[in-house]
């Protein structure tokens, strides 16, 4: 128990006077009345002083009340004008009639019949008029005056501060009244004065003000973590445009021109067009009859015009295939994390745009088993221990696989799609080796990690979500070397 200097000063004063009111003590301690009360409360908490609080209520007249105390209430003044039967019309000419007539009726002093006013004779002064003469009477009369705005009630608190036996004892043991210092000055640090200073002590019970550090969005941290994992696994990052031609978004990925995803209900089309690139004929042939592969193709026609129409990319695979076209020699290992678009009505589980993480591995002798191995490694590094694989379907991969991860409380959760690029996809560009490909809706991982039920919250940010989500959380998977 360490007393502050102010508490000690007050205790010292109390030791001399034993008890007193704040004003007297304020003069002795050299502080304001309010400060003395504050120090006394602290001493009281420690059992060194006793603070008795008494509340006194005093009444005062308002300016209007003071006027009526001199001249009588409006109804009393007006009553004097009622001599016998007075026409209402005449009485209303009086300046106090507005308040007076109503009050006279309410108090039963007069009757009004057929526009004529007459006294009832029952007009002795009520409690309000008595209180107006002497506020100390209090009671019903004063309450009435307060209600009419003629008087005010004031509560004044007074304190009586007395030393306790424990306080006597503490004071008796001697009090060090040397000065305390709040902030260390440069001067004090350099000169060595600090050795003689008493530094004010702070209470751990007083909670600090909350400060919110500037920080990276929790969703972005998850994206950064995935990016880090892929970089560590030796992938190069690619980046590209949000607007893509249908050729690169669909045709080059062997998505037939009448595929439902290519209808305007599902994809954001743009009015802009981009010419089909050199070599488009091989893609066209692949669609029509399978080119030189064992494929039959989709049959039917193929329209360059349809391929030229631009869309907001529906997947970042449109970037992977273009990278592959410009890098047909093995090995290729690239990934991309980027915004993709679907023409969807927005609700808690559907968005028109979201992030996709997507990557490919092209090399001699890579197989389906390598694809599964890669997926298992990636999800394991993301903190998902249980991974299983089920058959899937995507127009541009064969075989196709749907990886699932095990989440406590949810069971097996689908985590994107993967497969090996169909020969129809790679053959037109002279890519001779298998291309392992996979994509992942990252927002699903983010929802699991952040415990969100509504996808929209990732993008339509409530800044309290950013403020309250810890930068590091035990739910985050172990970092590199932490396993």
């Amino acid at each position, binding site marked *: 128990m360490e007393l502050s200097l102010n508490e000690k000063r007050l205790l010292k004063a109390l030791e001399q006077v034993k008890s007193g009111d704040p004003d007297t003590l304020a003069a002795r301690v050299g502080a304001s009345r309010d400060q003395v009360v504050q120090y006394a409360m602290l001493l009281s908490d420690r059992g060194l002083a006793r603070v008795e609080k008494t509340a006194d209520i005093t009444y005062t007249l308002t300016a209007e009340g003071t006027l009526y105390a001199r001249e009588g209430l409006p109804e009393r003044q007006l009553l004097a004008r009622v001599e016998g039967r007075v026409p209402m019309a005449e009485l209303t000419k009086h300046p106090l009639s507005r308040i007076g007539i109503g009050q006279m009726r309410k108090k039963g002093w007069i009757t009004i019949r057929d526009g004529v006013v007459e006294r009832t004779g029952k007009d002795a002064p009520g409690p309000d008029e008595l209180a107006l003469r002497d506020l100390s009477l209090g009671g019903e009369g004063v309450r009435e005056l307060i209600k009419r705005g003629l008087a005010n009630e004031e509560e004044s608190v007074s304190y009586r501060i007395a030393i306790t036996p424990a306080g006597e004892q503490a004071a008796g043991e001697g009090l060090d009244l040397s000065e305390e210092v709040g902030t260390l000055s440069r001067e004090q640090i350099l000169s060595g004065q600090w050795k003689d200073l008493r530094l004010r002590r702070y209470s751990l019970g007083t909670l600090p003000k909350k400060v919110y550090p*500037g920080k*990276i969005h929790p969703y972005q941290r998850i994206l950064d973590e995935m990016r880090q994992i892929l970089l560590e696994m030796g992938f190069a990052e690619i980046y590209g*445009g949000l607007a893509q031609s249908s050729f690169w978004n669909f045709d080059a990925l062997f998505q037939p021109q009448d595929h*439902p995803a290519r209808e305007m209900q599902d994809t954001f089309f*743009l009015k802009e067009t981009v010419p089909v690139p050199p070599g488009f004929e091989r893609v066209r042939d692949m669609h029509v009859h399978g080119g030189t592969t064992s494929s039959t193709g989709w049959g039917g026609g193929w329209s360059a015009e349809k391929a030229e129409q631009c869309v907001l990319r529906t997947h970042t695979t449109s970037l992977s295939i273009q990278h592959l076209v410009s890098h047909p020699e093995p090995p290729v290992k690239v990934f991309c994390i980027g915004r993709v678009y679907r023409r969807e009505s927005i609700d808690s589980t559907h968005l028109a745009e979201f992030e996709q993480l997507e990557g490919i591995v092209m090399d001699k002798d890579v197989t389906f088993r390598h694809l599964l191995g890669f997926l298992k490694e990636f999800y394991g590094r993301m903190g998902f221990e249980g991974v299983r694989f089920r058959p899937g379907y995507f127009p541009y991969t064969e075989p196709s696989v749907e990886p699932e991860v095990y989440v406590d409380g949810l069971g097996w959760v689908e985590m994107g799609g993967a497969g090996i690029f169909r020969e129809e996809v790679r053959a037109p560009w002279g890519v001779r080796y298998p291309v392992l490909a996979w994509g992942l809706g990252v927002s699903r991982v983010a929802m699991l990690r952040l415990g969100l039920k509504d996808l929209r919250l990732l993008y339509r940010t409530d800044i*309290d979500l950013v403020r309250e989500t810890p930068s590091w959380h035990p739910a985050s998977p172990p970092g590199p070397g932490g396993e």
Partner: protein
Amino acid sequence: MMAVISLYYRYLERMTGAGRGEIIQRLPMFGSDIERVEEDHVDVEFFPSRPDLFSVEGVARAMRGFLGLETGLPEYRVTPSGISFSIDPGLACIRPYLGTAVIRGISLDEEAILSLMGLQEALHWALGRGRSKVAIGIHDLDRVTPPFRYIAEERTRTFIPLDYDREMTMEEILEEHPKGRAYADIVKNFPRFPLIVDARDQVLSFPPIINGELTRVTGESRNLLLDTTGTDERAVMTAVNILCTALADAGGRIESVDVSGSHIPTLAPSTRLVSCAECNSLLGVDFTPEELSLLLEKMRFSAEPAGGDKVRVGVPCFRADIMHDWDIFEDAAIAYGYEHFRTEIPPTFTIGRAHPVITIASAVRSLGSGLGYQEVIPFTLTSERVMYGKMQRPVNPATLCVLHPITEENTMVRTGILPLLIETLQFNRHRELPQRLFAVGDVVAGLATFQKAAFVSLHPAADFSEAYAVADALCRELSIPYGTEGSEDPAFIEGRRGDLMKNGRVVGTFGEIHPAVLNAFELEHPVAAVELDLTAVPGYPSGLGTP
């Protein structure tokens, strides 16, 4: 985008010869998602590539193989019906292709009829692309008289459509009948409409819209006529094959129809000679041709070693998805069991390399948090009202608009980030002050994509000096040698705004947001703001992001 098929247990168990528990447990590993398990049925999603699984009959056939109860190619006998069907050459540019078959001796109970209706609906969706590519009609053969004719008819021809009791012209049907209104777009622009009539000129069907009431199929129907019409011959024939094999499994006898000299359907398998070595190198396994054959038989192919590493595979007529040898190898992988593959990390050695655009974005993020700003990740889709109207800015001529927006809030791709940050302040106007937010990400100018970063600070003392200090810090930290010029940007207060200049180009704007903009976004305190074009950062690659 998958088809959900209801499988009724009694019928499914009878057709499969296995219990519902085993079927439901194994279906996911065959390539489907169990949607709901109900008391009398299970709803299962199948992939659009497998329309042959859109019926209880098809699922039972596949599961018999997958569970090892009956393997190899299912045989379907087709005998000639002696019935012929002619096609009017006038249909060539309207709806040229016709598939057909006769099914005799059928007796459909309630669950079989439900399965058939579900199959027809799912085929219309997945194979028929909403009936435009293929439409299916099933008729009670005993109500009409062969031969049949598929003709291009006057739009004013009348008949009684299904579910009606009066004659209507085909034009009236498109306007009044619910199916007419739903599918009118497919035919309405043709001068004549497709119609199927019998020898006595009675109407069977107005494809792809509606059948006639005359040939309605009921529980009493014993002999059926099938028609599939469309614009894609392969899809039209696949639909016939899938329906006929399902109806044959349900107990029907399939008979062919003479269409312009060819007998349809044949229900004959096609043959592929595949390489076991190619399969092994795709899957990373070492199957022998014998092992591969056994696996494929489980998937209802016929398969036999054909010398060397070759395997001769008979592909059943209902498999629409077998386009390439690898489609067969995937089936081998499914039969082997995805759960049985020994996984392995790819041996490919490469060195990881971050993309400079993303590295620059990361640098901005670390600066933003260092400056005490919190990151937000706004949408890239927005509206001209938010991007320009509320900002008092003129519409950018390089705005990229989407052609068929769903809502007024999502009509274009953002050309800047600042308006979205200010909108985020609006969403958060009841949150504690000060609020300092930033965002970094893609914007577009026409078809080109590049990155911008924006910063806003909202509190009672936010002012020009704060914005200038942040702009200066960003440019210094990102090594952008910059100058300033007075700005004309109407989103900011005149005399409290500046443009960041690099090599004579405006690369950013900063200052105090105009009170009228604050009013438009319902903000109550001043906002200091900076927006920076990240292509100004040295090392930002040029020529990226354009299709």
